[in-house]
């Protein structure tokens, strides 16, 4: 491979672009987080007080718990469902291709739009969710109860993201050589055993990747709860991004919002760096 200047030229535009639009804003926000800066009131240096305020703010703790609760539940449900679906559709059956395509439809469904649509699905008096529940004589307060509001968010999130887990697992299922199964069938007839000792171990690296990638995305959740519940009832579904957004663009408390942002960045980065070695190995 040749040395020279050309190699930098190819990377230059992207590197410069990203430097300008991420490093500069990050440094600016980091500085801002040590100031009291509200739009129209000027700026004054207040040291670490924003951070002290963050940890003393009950809504901060509430949204941390909400965000991680929603992320943990939806990621595990999606991973599980994705795996089951992949096992189901992993068989060669006529019509399979169409089903797979249909299943990948929600992948890019605009989350805000899904939340908005969810309003009509979980509508408490005439919505289809409750019409279905009434078959069992139940009426669920989907959007007005603090617990069920979280569930509604999780259900819709599952609808959007299960296809992702499904497609990744399906790729994994297809990559398992047929001979493995043939040999295994000589030993046992139990499908559970075959799953436990062949399929699952061979898919386990995928589980790691899916959980990391899904967790990262799940912690960014914003549009879906924003349009479904606007963080309500009360602050029951006020996930972290909604909290920061409100601080920044409803209260125009820029210094404090920056501090909130950085605390979250620290939390997310800690989680990611724990997986970092694994993530890095993939790209060698």
């Amino acid at each position, binding site marked *: *491979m*040749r040395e020279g200047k050309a*190699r930098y030229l*190819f*990377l230059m*535009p*992207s*590197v410069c*672009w990203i430097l300008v*639009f*991420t490093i500069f*804003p*990050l440094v*600016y926000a980091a500085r*801002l987080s040590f100031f009291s800066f509200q739009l129209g009131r000027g700026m004054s240096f207040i040291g670490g007080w924003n951070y002290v305020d963050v940890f003393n703010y009950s809504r901060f703790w509430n949204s941390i718990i909400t965000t991680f609760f929603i992320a943990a539940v939806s990621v595990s449900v999606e991973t599980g469902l994705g795996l089951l679906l992949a096992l*189901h559709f992993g*068989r060669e*059956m006529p019509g399979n291709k169409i*089903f*797979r395509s249909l299943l*990948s*439809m929600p992948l*890019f*469904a*605009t989350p*805000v*739009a*899904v939340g*908005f*649509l*969810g*309003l*009509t*699905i979980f509508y408490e008096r*005439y919505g289809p969710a409750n*019409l279905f529940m009434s078959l069992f004589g139940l009426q669920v307060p989907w959007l007005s109860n603090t617990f069920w509001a979280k569930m509604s968010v999780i259900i819709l999130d599952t609808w959007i993201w299960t296809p*992702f887990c499904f*497609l*990744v697992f399906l*790729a*994994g299922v297809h990559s398992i050589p047929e001979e493995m199964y043939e040999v295994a069938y000589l030993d046992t007839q139990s499908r559970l055993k075959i799953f436990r000792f062949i399929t699952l171990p061979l898919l386990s690296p995928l589980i790691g990747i899916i959980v990391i*990638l899904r967790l*990262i995305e799940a912690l*960014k959740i*914003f549009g879906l709860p*924003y*349009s479904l519940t606007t963080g309500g009832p009360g602050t029951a579904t006020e996930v*972290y*991004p909604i909290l*920061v*957004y409100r601080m*920044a*663009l409803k209260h125009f408390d*820029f210094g404090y919002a920056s501090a909130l942002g950085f605390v*979250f*960045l620290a939390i997310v*980065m800690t989680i*990611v760096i724990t997986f970092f070695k694994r*993530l890095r190995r993939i*790209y060698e």
Partner: protein
Amino acid sequence: MRRLTFLQQIKWYVITSLIMVIFCFPIYWASVNSVKPPLEIFAGSWFPFLQFKPTIHNWMVELGTEEVRKALFNSTLISTVSTIIVLSIGSLAAYGLFRFKFVGVKRQDIVVWFLSLRVMPPVVFIVPFFIMMKTFGLLDTPCALILINVTFTLPFAVIILWETFREIPVAVVEAAYIDGASEWQIFHKIAVPLSSSAMIAVGIICLAFVWNEFLFALTLTYKEAIVMPVLIGGTEHTRGIEFWFVATRTLLAMTVPIVIALSVQRYLVRGLTLGAVKG
């Protein structure tokens, strides 16, 4: 896997249809509501033609609205322009990564640095971006959203294209090199044409990412440059829950990305796992 018996096959199709019904329901529900006359909404009717006469009235009203057309136009403009920029500078960077050894910096370090941008919670950026765009007078312009969206889709494009370039046989590239082709010629005469289908897929996925982006669009636009997601996020509380209105709007916003998901099956897995799973 073992062949299924006839009974098992029937079981398979029954389970499949159940899954399909549940999965397709939200989209079916939206489509049905969008062609219902408002009076039918609460009547519990589920099937057009059988239970009620479908109407395109809701669609005409919606598409005739000035702000909807503006949002559709902005969404299209912003996602197309961002995608073009991402593909052009992203493929250059991917080629740079693919072709060269760097002194001092390891290749994976650059890749991980690009990746870290997709990992960072975007909320950290809303305050600085808001102030930045305000300072430059770009608030509420498509330009602001293009700049931001390119930033956050670029890492994705670079990583996937880099992975694709790596699949080009070394011999091809070496042969061109020995024949005296410059790096630029190898890039645009060999690397890009050989990975054109991946380029198209990456472009299409980027288009969907940008189309769906909501946080920054909500932060940086309020009137002139609003996009479809912002239109939806903002109007809900002024109009209340009118089912037919919700349905047409969500479908307008979701059709483009859903069609996209259906059209790029082949690269979806690789794209969405950021190249970690080959698919």
